[in-house]
């Protein structure tokens, strides 16, 4: 886990419209922190022609519009111009993100109609359903990155005992807020979608909001704890939404 990040990231072209800055190849919190710091820096100081910044586990992808980059730098080689601009910008990025990571509590109603596969996960793990809930809600998870769906957080730290293979045939419809386990990962579906994870519970809170501004409740670098609640609290929190 303590693998150090490369001092200067390696830059790779991803076709003609993106560059990837690779800070390492291992799943590691320090490497991920560098990636997040770099993304934060670029989002605060956008490069001309840049259209998107995607901080992932150990690499940062920077999307750009080649025509805008070419026009700004007066060049016929926008990829090289963007690579130079990015290299320069990343050299100035701090090693640690400025944003203070938070610990986010996600209330979850486990089992029953809220988590149809809880029994299956329990059976696989050899634990009782109560123990599965206790282990899952007793762990603190680290948010590496967002992806898959708006506001979907990739969490690290699932207890090995709860590792459960994905369903053989994915469900056509997983309700929004469902908490699942797929392989060695756990997470919350922010939207209704097809999905192949084992569903163990559901949260009544909206993890992604876009009424005024797009807002993800959980952000990379945060710690997540699941708080077991009953059906009555689920309904009460749901009504408050």
């Amino acid at each position, binding site marked *: 886990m303590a693998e150090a990040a490369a001092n200067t990231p390696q830059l790779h072209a991803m076709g003609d419209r993106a560059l990837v800055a690779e800070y390492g190849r291992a799943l590691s919190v320090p490497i991920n922190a560098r990636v997040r710091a770099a993304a934060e820096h670029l989002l605060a100081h956008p490069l001309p022609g840049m259209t998107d910044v995607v901080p992932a586990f150990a690499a940062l992808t920077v999307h750009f519009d080649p025509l805008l980059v070419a026009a700004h730098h007066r060049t*016929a*080689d926008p990829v090289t111009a963007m690579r130079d601009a990015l290299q320069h910008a990343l050299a100035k990025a701090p090693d640690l993100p400025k944003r203070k990571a938070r610990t986010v509590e996600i209330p979850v109603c486990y089992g029953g109609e809220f988590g149809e596969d809880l029994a299956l996960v329990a059976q696989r793990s050899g634990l009782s359903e109560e123990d599965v809930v206790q282990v899952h809600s007793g762990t603190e998870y680290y948010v590496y*990155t967002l992806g898959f769906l*708006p506001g979907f957080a990739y969490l690290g730290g699932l207890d090995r005992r709860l590792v459960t293979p994905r369903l053989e045939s994915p469900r056509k419809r997983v309700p929004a807020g469902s908490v699942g386990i797929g392989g060695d990962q756990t997470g919350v579906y922010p939207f209704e979608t097809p999905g192949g994870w084992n569903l163990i519970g559901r949260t009544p809170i909206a993890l992604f909001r876009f009424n005024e501004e797009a807002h*993800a409740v959980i952000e990379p670098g945060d710690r997540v704890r699941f708080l077991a609640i009953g059906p009555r609290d689920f309904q009460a929190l749901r009504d408050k939404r």
Partner: protein
Amino acid sequence: MGIQIEHPGLLSTLQDLGRTGLQHLGVPVNGAMDETSHRMANLLVGNAEEEATLEITLSGPRLHFQEDAVIAVCGANMAPMIDGEPLPMWRPVRVRAGVRLLFGRPQIGCRAYLAVAAGFDVPAVMGSRATAVRGAYGGFNGRALRKGDVLPLRSPEEAHTARWVGLLAHKQSRFAYPNWSVSRHKMPYRVVPQPLRILPGRHWQNFPVVMREQLVEAEYRVGNDSDRMGYRLSGPALDARRSHDVLSEGMVTGAVQVPPGGQPIILMADHQTTGGYPVIAVVIGVDLPVVAQLAPGDTLRFKLATQEESYAAAIAREQQLELVRQALAVRLR
């Protein structure tokens, strides 16, 4: 008042140039699969290129116009008919309230784009009118059109469409159009399939030389399970075993991913923001409309290109669009 959907077709969604700037929150870009046809259709009715158009896929809808409109259809030729008469594509057409526009099956291509002067009156969600079917937001109620829907149209400002209307109003028929259209050479794809130009991907070097050669020599078939998220190809398998395990990272539209089975997938407009399969190559931006117009069962080939060629092709496309823009300005003067 607007356009009533009497039959939705296979998959008809509002799309625009996509929802950019929020990929760090996991928000996919979406947007028109064939950007060139989308932009051209908007251009022909005097809209900004960012305006939403209706993307029509493989099997066409039947639309009932409840009000007058100036429209243009570009992209795949799906034999559009207005009240039983062929509707010419790649030019502005004035239609009267009451007409029915029917699309059939594509003779060439896979996706047609319908632009309406002044645009569809749907709210922008997170800065875009593109439909995100997964997530169910944007476009028309966050979903594909259904029978009975009424797509609201924005009222054209008089000055905005006066020139178009003036051009076409002398005819009293139910629809009218000029005798000119966009030249065949300005269309985004050809009847004769072109090889897709690719650049080496992020993990190109991780694939053995024979595999890289195979990618450009072999013919691939577009699978039936291809959609707006990705085109699943079948052909000689690409051995990805020698490629190191990769952590998920930001993906780009046109990325040619190689999952463990070895059958490549080209990521398209609805792809997830991140992905974890090795990327052997990336289709250049200008050729994405060519991919978008391939239908399941079609075959394709790849051709290795350079960054210089990609940029030259991007400039050439902008010049083509600019020529159309200028020609239109002259015609409407």
